[in-house]
């Protein structure tokens, strides 16, 4: 098993960014890549879901959504206990870490496929139910029942963000059309998936490097949090995976998601709902620390740890 080259693309991006190379993907390309990743993941999940027992899956989705809220509460509690950050910043960071990163999910999925480890086909649905609850929690924690843009505005912001719409849309299309009808879409959405992920990670590497400056600014505490909290998330995610009897592959996915932090939905929603929170703080933690950590070290670490201790009965 050689190194998965998609990770090398991420590292190329980080190095190029660190040495300030004259390299960047245009924003339009980044958006195209994101749309392709979201639709691919959703579509793949939908096709698999077509063969699954939806009624058996539904309760597990509720448990997983709840996990997101719990993780957000733990993050908020720890940050407030530390007395390092004002309430708004603590709540905003909690929202980011209770929510999840689709990029990390894609990397974990590619990792499992690279290693030939099977996982629950409907895992894309986990991303959908995990994305939002912690964001609502974050707003509640600081604003009580009065977010700056009103609950209507906030709902629009979170439920109608790109992530939910495309993942859920892809899931439903895959489910309705079924595997045979989806076949002609495979060259773009499935076969090219790894290549698209590679380009996406190249860009994410550049972003991570450009965010590194924030680390100096915000200091050691944020740096520590951005590495340590994913480990707490991973443990919580692992317990839930075990409770739900997920397969080993499914457990790796859920653990990776739990260890990840949002960098699309949460920042957009928090900026308008809790404007007094410093957006640079949470984005630095999420993009300069947690994402790189998970992509390069976290995912394989979670896999090897789970492979050693996860009960074979799981799945």
């Amino acid at each position: 098993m050689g190194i998965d080259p998609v990770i090398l693309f991420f590292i190329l991006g980080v190095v190029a960014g660190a040495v300030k190379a004259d390299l960047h993907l245009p924003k339009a390309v980044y958006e195209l890549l994101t749309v392709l990743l979201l639709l691919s993941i959703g579509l793949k999940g939908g096709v698999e879901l077509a063969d699954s027992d939806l009624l058996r899956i539904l309760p597990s989705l509720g448990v997983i959504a709840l996990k997101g809220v719990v993780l957000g509460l733990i993050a908020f509690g720890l940050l407030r206990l530390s007395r390092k950050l004002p309430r708004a910043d603590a709540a905003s960071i909690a929202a980011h870490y209770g929510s999840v990163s689709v990029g990390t999910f894609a990397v974990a999925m590619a990792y499992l496929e690279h290693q030939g480890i099977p996982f629950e086909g409907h895992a894309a649905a986990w991303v959908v139910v995990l994305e939002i609850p912690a964001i609502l929690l974050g707003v509640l924690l600081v604003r009580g029942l009065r977010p700056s843009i009103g609950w209507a505005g906030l709902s629009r912001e979170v439920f109608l963000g790109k992530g939910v719409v495309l993942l859920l849309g892809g899931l439903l299309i895959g489910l309705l059309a079924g595997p045979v009808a989806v076949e002609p879409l495979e060259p773009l959405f499935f076969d090219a998936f790894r290549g698209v992920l590679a380009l996406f990670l190249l860009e994410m590497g550049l972003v991570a490097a450009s965010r590194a400056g924030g680390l100096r600014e915000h200091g050691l505490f944020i740096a520590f949090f951005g590495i340590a909290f994913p480990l707490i998330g991973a443990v919580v995610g692992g317990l839930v995976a075990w409770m739900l009897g997920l397969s080993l592959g499914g457990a790796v996915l859920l653990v990776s998601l739990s260890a990840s932090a949002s960098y699309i939905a949460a920042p957009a929603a928090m900026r308008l709902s809790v404007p007094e929170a410093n957006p640079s703080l949470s984005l630095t933690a999420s993009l300069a620390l947690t994402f790189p950590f998970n992509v390069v070290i976290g995912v394989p670490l979670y896999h090897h740890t789970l492979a050693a201790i996860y009960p074979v009965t799981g799945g």
Partner: protein
Amino acid sequence: MHRKLLTVITEEALERPLIKIINEAGARGYTVTEAWGSGRRGARAAGIEQGANIRVEVICEEDMAWQIAEILHQRYFKDFAMVLYLSDVQVIRGEKF
């Protein structure tokens, strides 16, 4: 016809609320361009996680310009990157402003 040109440079995330305020104040129009830059809140480049800045221009009577500026200042100046300034322009055949 002499009018004021109000220019607002601020975060892209505020585009929608800004336009609402401009319309509610009764302005006849506005123009937006994409921008990036730097100020008291540090550099703001178009990143993947945050949009860059927008540069919003409104041509209107002096009173209205001050009124819009006042609302924006009060509501957003503390928490958002924002610069506001006025200049004098001569609108041609501007019966409509």
